[in-house]
């Protein structure tokens, strides 16, 4: 099937647009973040320090006519709202870009590394939007919406970087699939891998921020700027855990589907090809994360490190194995 050049051009334009919109969203998230209220630990600490000062009556009594807090909140809130709206818009345009590529080539839009990287980012952004909407729906939990929203900028950062790399270094012209990829398993196996990779990115970012927040909570003098504005460590830990728990079976499924496909395409269901090996390693690391969560002394910080390690293996699997190591999965088009 020939490639429709017009549609493919529109797809590229949508891609570039979505990157710009995402960057805007990221800046808005960070703007909200930097105006965010400083959480209680810091405040009480500050109060204690001020109190110890003794002669600080003048500073601790409010200045007449100066109402600091109530003015700031709505502004930050509005920035945050705009950030979410931008994210949503970006996701819609991004989705359009993938859809157009699919239409241009008459196949699923994840046949090479550019498309694959793009789809992973979309999965991460959608996962993030789902988290946001779920928590506004169940606002009665201890993390208020504006709190978890503090994650936004930190999630958009890797997304933007990955999209930028995909769109430049890894970019591939729209083209039909090579015969080895012409199978309905590309829909099943790759979609599962994309969704799980995207959600793992989100979980990994949450775990990373959890570590920052923990440092701050253990010693409120450390990481004050970022730590004090982040959601509570409990909320971060929980969102990372839930994301991983939901996606681990999907990742398992992705590997099994890959094995079923390999049986038809390569003549064996498992052959320790570099991609297979790395997926296995990532799977084992995530299984270790789940076990760590159930092992005394391993919950919390150690578990978070394992989750980050899992993400590191996933990223390694995506870039290094596709680009540097020669294997059966080398469809990167590089």
């Amino acid at each position, binding site marked *: 099937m020939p490639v429709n050049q017009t549609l493919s051009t529109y797809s590229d334009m949508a891609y570039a647009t979505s990157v710009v919109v995402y960057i805007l969203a990221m800046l808005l998230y960070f703007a909200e973040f930097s105006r965010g209220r400083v959480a209680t630990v810091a405040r009480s600490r500050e109060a204690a320090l001020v109190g110890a000062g003794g002669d600080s009556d003048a500073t601790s009594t409010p200045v007449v006519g100066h109402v600091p807090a109530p003015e700031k909140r709505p502004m930050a809130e509005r920035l945050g709202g705009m950030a979410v709206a931008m994210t949503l818009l970006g996701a819609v345009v991004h989705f359009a870009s993938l859809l157009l590529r699919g239409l241009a080539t008459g196949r699923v839009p994840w046949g090479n590394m550019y498309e694959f990287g793009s789809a992973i980012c979309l999965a991460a952004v959608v996962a993030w939007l789902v988290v946001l909407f779920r928590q506004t729906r169940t606002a009665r939990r201890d993390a208020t919406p504006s709190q978890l929203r503090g994650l936004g900028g930190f999630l958009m950062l890797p997304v933007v970087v990955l999209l930028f790399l995909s769109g430049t270094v890894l970019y591939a012209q729209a083209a039909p699939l090579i015969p080895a990829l012409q199978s309905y398993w590309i829909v099943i196996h790759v979609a599962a891998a994309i969704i799980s990779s995207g959600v793992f990115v989100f979980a990994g970012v949450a775990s990373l921020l959890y570590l920052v927040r923990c440092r701050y909570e253990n010693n409120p003098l450390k990481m004050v700027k970022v730590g004090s504005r982040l959601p509570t460590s409990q909320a971060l830990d929980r969102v990372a855990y839930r994301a991983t728990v939901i996606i681990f079976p999907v990742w398992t499924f992705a590997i099994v589907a890959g094995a*079923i496909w390999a049986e038809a395409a390569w003549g064996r269901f498992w052959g320790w090809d570099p991609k297979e090996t790395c997926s296995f390693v990532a799977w084992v690391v995530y299984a270790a994360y789940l076990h760590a969560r159930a092992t005394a002394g391993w919950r919390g910080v150690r578990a978070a490190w394992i989750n980050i390690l899992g993400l590191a293996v996933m990223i390694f699997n995506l870039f290094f194995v596709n680009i540097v190591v020669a294997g059966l999965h080398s469809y990167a088009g590089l």
Partner: protein
Amino acid sequence: MGGYLKMALAFLRNTWRGLTSMRTALVLLFLLALAALPGALIPQRSLNITEVDRYFAEYPTLAPILDKLGAFEVFGSVWFASIYVLLFISLIGCLLPRCFEYYKQWRSKPVRTPRNLSRMPHHETATLDASVDEVMAATRTRLRGWRMVEREEDDGAKSISAERGFLREIGNLVFHFALVGLLVGVAGGKLYGYEGQVIVVADGSEFCNSGTYNYDSFRAGLTVDGTQLTPFCVRVDDFDIDYQPNGQVGDYRVNMHYQSGEDLETNTWQPYLLQVNHPLRTAGDRIYLTGNGYAPRFTVTFPDGQQRTDVIQWQPADPATMLSQGATKFDPPGVLDEEQRRRSQIAVTGLFAPTAAFDGAVLSSRFPDLLDPAAAVDVMRGDLGLDSGRGQSIFGVDQSMVDQGRLQRVARQNLRVGEEIRLDDGTTVRFDGVERWANLQVSHDPFQPWVLLFSVLVIFGISTSLMIKRRRVWVRAVPHPDQDGSGSARTVVEVGGLARTDQAGYGEEFTRLAADLLGTGVAHSPKSRAAAGPARERKS
């Protein structure tokens, strides 16, 4: 003496306990991940022997050391095996007692309602205008689907203990046992499976799975000796391949026929279109198309007028342009004298280009498709060494024969289809045309369905175990001491909840449940709050 025995037993017991602890499992999981990594980073013999050779050439000091450590065969190495064997021993050692415990739990009733429900992580209370029995009945209805026991308590109070989410543990056990099954299935395949490669020229040539000698290469499982292969035959009629303008393969198809089972006796052939992603499955074996190439056809006419024609696969030297190299070997017919025969054997060696490009007289290929074929051949004459008993590659001549001067080049020329070379003794070598060949892989693994089954169970088990929450809820109804003026019954109802697993999210379900049971469903209306008020007072 007894002391030593005791010590030895204690040591064994402690080792066993240590081995089957979660912490050990965790460490072993990490070791497994770590041990598998070199398999992705260092080329593996089983996957890519040329890469391994290159590695040896590039790191001449490091490579032999790595080789000693088994780094080029990670997944067959002793240390890799010892990690997963330990892991699985640990797994089984930890599963068996858990099965037992699970069975006990399943048989036992939900635990007694704790005296002080307000100590539970989830707790709510309210005073309702209903009798204790009415509250109990409503609770039973709401908790349908939960495992429940109702108990009488002092002072006319009653309580219900309920729990739910037993499937979680089942899922977990299924998952872990399925992992063991998976390992056994994979091991079974390694024992009873085999895999063979064979090149078949697509001109109606046949291949039969009647013995390992029919294969170009054969990898047998540990219990396979090659005498009991399931019989089937394939005939490769035609090979179709489409290229895109950039030289990328668009599609390829092998038109073939096969026979197995009864068809072998009646000699009937079934047609099949063999494609990538569509292996032929017959007689418990799978036949794959794994490669292709060209087989030039040469005819040698000896001085006495006898002719010999042969089509032998040549090997692609450059997969992008399909420039191929090989050797087509001829024995002079009807020569009985050994000595003379060994002086006049002929090999046509050299390069073949499907779309020829000449740089001066040097042949190369511009495109992988068969558009403008040409061959650059060296004709060798002499002793091919075919009788030496030494195996030789079908893609080349025995170099030692050349070195000894027993095989000599007698001509070198570029040929188009139909052109021929005349040797000094009058022999002619004609380039007749080209066939394509298909590389077929035959695989046999009787355990594959089991591996699939256990994989599905792994997914099923892990999903169940991660999605389902194991949780408990207790409801206690105590008659309110001061009945209101009208004399109707009032009851203080307390609800407590506990999620038994490390799983966030029980809070919401509990909130809904408590709201239903306590009649506070109308989102904290002032009325229900008022109702809850006295109960709180009473407690303090």
